């Protein structure tokens, strides 16, 4: 159990800056996601917390104690890598008891502890089996078990489900989260999969090019992205950006798209120039009344709903609508946006503050 605090942590490899000065706090018992594309610095950040890399500058606190110069083995962290890092010549029980025996625990105590953990994971019936013959899921459970037996302060996981196929990954994600809910141990989890992050995380840090772009609760980040990068990275399909040349007043609640007035949440920041209106696919509605129109390029069936790709005067737009709507390619459709949900982005790619998003943006 531990709170982990990152303060102005920075990492350089030669002339390359892997992580720019970053700060965030992981509360005790949280399931915390480090999310971003490959090369964004998420794994480097995790490795610094674990003590596998030394930060170039900044501090890392675990339970209030500065650990930046402490060795990995002294931080009491359990690391779970991409699957299947098991000792092939040992059976399941031995794989799990190994970390305990090597710490000097008696065989009897280790056996008792392993049995307890095996029960949590539902693998108590296979302790005497060789790991070679196990299914992917069971191997993953054993790897987890080996981390859990040590009762570490925190679990660090680096894309632990990355090698699994989609159906099974979803199942393991649910199982991992349920396990966390039972044990309540602080867990830091690295992934590039935004859905996995949304699904499992209590909080998410979104990173890009070594910079923390945003930090907060999944739904808040989804609703009120701080930058265009976050808006595009979270959500599938991504948030749409309708590019326009124009302005919005401080305290204004309207922008002009191709000659049409569009209502937006009352702005806090005035801006002019090359702006973009950010709108999520599910906040677009088809309406004959609207003069703002788009031409249907493609439709993609997804079961209960479908994704319609439209060509508008301000760029390509993807709308999520019920599958009961029938639309044909080439059709010209009037579009309305859910005013309360919109974000305007400035020229630098940052969201302009409004009455709607300022609460979230001020958080981090």
């Amino acid at each position, binding site marked *: 159990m531990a709170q982990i605090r990152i303060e102005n942590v920075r990492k350089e490899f030669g002339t390359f800056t892997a992580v720019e000065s970053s700060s965030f706090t992981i509360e005790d018992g949280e399931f915390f996601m480090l999310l971003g*594309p490959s090369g964004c610095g998420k794994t480097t950040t995790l490795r610094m917390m674990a003590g596998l890399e030394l930060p170039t500058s900044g501090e890392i606190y675990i339970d209030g104690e500065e650990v930046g110069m402490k060795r990995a083995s002294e931080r009491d962290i359990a690391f779970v890598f991409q699957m299947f890092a098991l000792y092939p010549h040992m059976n399941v029980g031995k794989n799990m008891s190994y970390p305990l025996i090597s710490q000097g625990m008696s065989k009897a105590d280790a056996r008792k502890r392993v049995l307890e953990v095996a029960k949590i994971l539902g693998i108590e019936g296979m302790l005497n089996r060789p790991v070679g013959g196990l299914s992917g899921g069971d191997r993953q459970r054993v790897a987890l078990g080996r981390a859990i037996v040590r009762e570490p302060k925190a679990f660090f996981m680096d894309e632990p489900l990355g090698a699994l*196929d989609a159906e099974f990954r979803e199942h393991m994600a649910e199982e991992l989260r349920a396990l966390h809910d039972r044990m309540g141990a602080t867990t830091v989890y690295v992934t590039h999969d935004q859905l996995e992050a*949304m699904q499992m995380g209590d909080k998410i840090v979104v990173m890009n090019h070594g910079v923390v772009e945003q930090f907060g609760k999944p739904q808040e980040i989804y609703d009120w992205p701080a930058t265009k990068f976050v808006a595009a990275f979270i959500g599938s399909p991504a948030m749409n950006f309708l590019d326009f040349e124009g302005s919005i007043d401080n305290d204004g609640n309207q922008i002009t798209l191709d000659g049409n007035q569009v209502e937006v949440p009352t702005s806090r920041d005035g801006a002019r120039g090359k702006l973009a209106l950010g709108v999520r696919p599910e906040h677009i509605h088809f309406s004959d009344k609207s003069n703002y129109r788009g031409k249907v390029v493609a439709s993609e069936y997804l079961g209960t709903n479908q994704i319609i790709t439209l060509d508008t005067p301000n760029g390509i737009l993807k709308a999520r609508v019920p599958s009961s709507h029938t639309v044909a390619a080439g059709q010209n459709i009037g579009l309305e946006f859910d005013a309360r949900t919109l974000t305007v982005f400035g020229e630098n790619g940052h969201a302009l503050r409004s009455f709607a998003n300022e609460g979230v943006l001020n958080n981090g």
Partner: protein
Amino acid sequence: MAEVVLNKVTKTFSDTVALDDVSLTIPEGSFVVLLGPTGAGKTTTLRMVSGLDEPDSGEVLIDGKSMKGFAPAQRNVAMVFQQYSLYPHLTVRQNLAFPLKSPLLRTSEADIEEKIKSVSEVLQIAHKLDNKATALSGGEMQRVSIGRALVRSPNIYLMDEPLSSLDAKLRADLRIELKSIQVNFGQTLLYVTHDQIEAMTMATHIGVLDKGKLVQFGPPREIYENPVSIYAASRLGQPRINILPADLFEGSQPKAAHTIGLRPEQITQGTGEDSVVKRVEHLGDQTRLHLQFKQHDIITVTDAHTELQSGDTLKIKPDAPFYFDVDGGRIT
């Protein structure tokens, strides 16, 4: 472009039956996606059409002509595999041009240049044409290998999980591009995947394979809304369909019903019997609810900004559910 027919094709590898009496018609100009988990027979079906493997019994017909004894090259099919295979000593441009330089095709230099230009733009690799194939990232290499198939005009494109190694954004872009090859250019595709989003969004027809048998074949909407079995119903839908004992809910059910199948939209919220909310997952555009109902786990979806929290009680009721018999076959 051509119609491709598999007629009662069976294939065994030592003691495993990979394909079991599979009959399937791929209409000219269609996009057929074969869906199923590892070992279902998807790739074997593809290899039968390509000529990389021969059936033990049954036959493959392209344009009405039996392919028995025809080598892959003689069938005029274009293949894209999950693992890209490029000529490492050639540039991207040379790799793309290679299939067109076959003496059989006699393509003019100007046509080759034109083809390469349009394909490289579609695949977002136009700026890498003069790079060596080895100086590309994995995703770029895969796009070049897709491109090498696209520059040709074969009878049929055969694709085996071509997008699985690409990142999410690129996968979404390429889904639309691959679909347009069929829609706008009238090409025929046979495509293997275990990604249900790819299957639903691109296919004109989905073939559901289960242990070497073709268990259902039809448009995505038909498979989703009218599955023939629990197995077929479980291939599509996120979150997956809930399969529960038939008599779990109040009210009557068909006599032979062993289980009831409920997709999230087949669960009415607010009326019916009490369930307990175990976990609430905010996914942005929707929220997933993990419910406990009479000792059974149920997953459904609700509004993005629901007030529900874990521990709350929620009344639920089936709405036009599926019923399945003891063997998992659909009853109603």
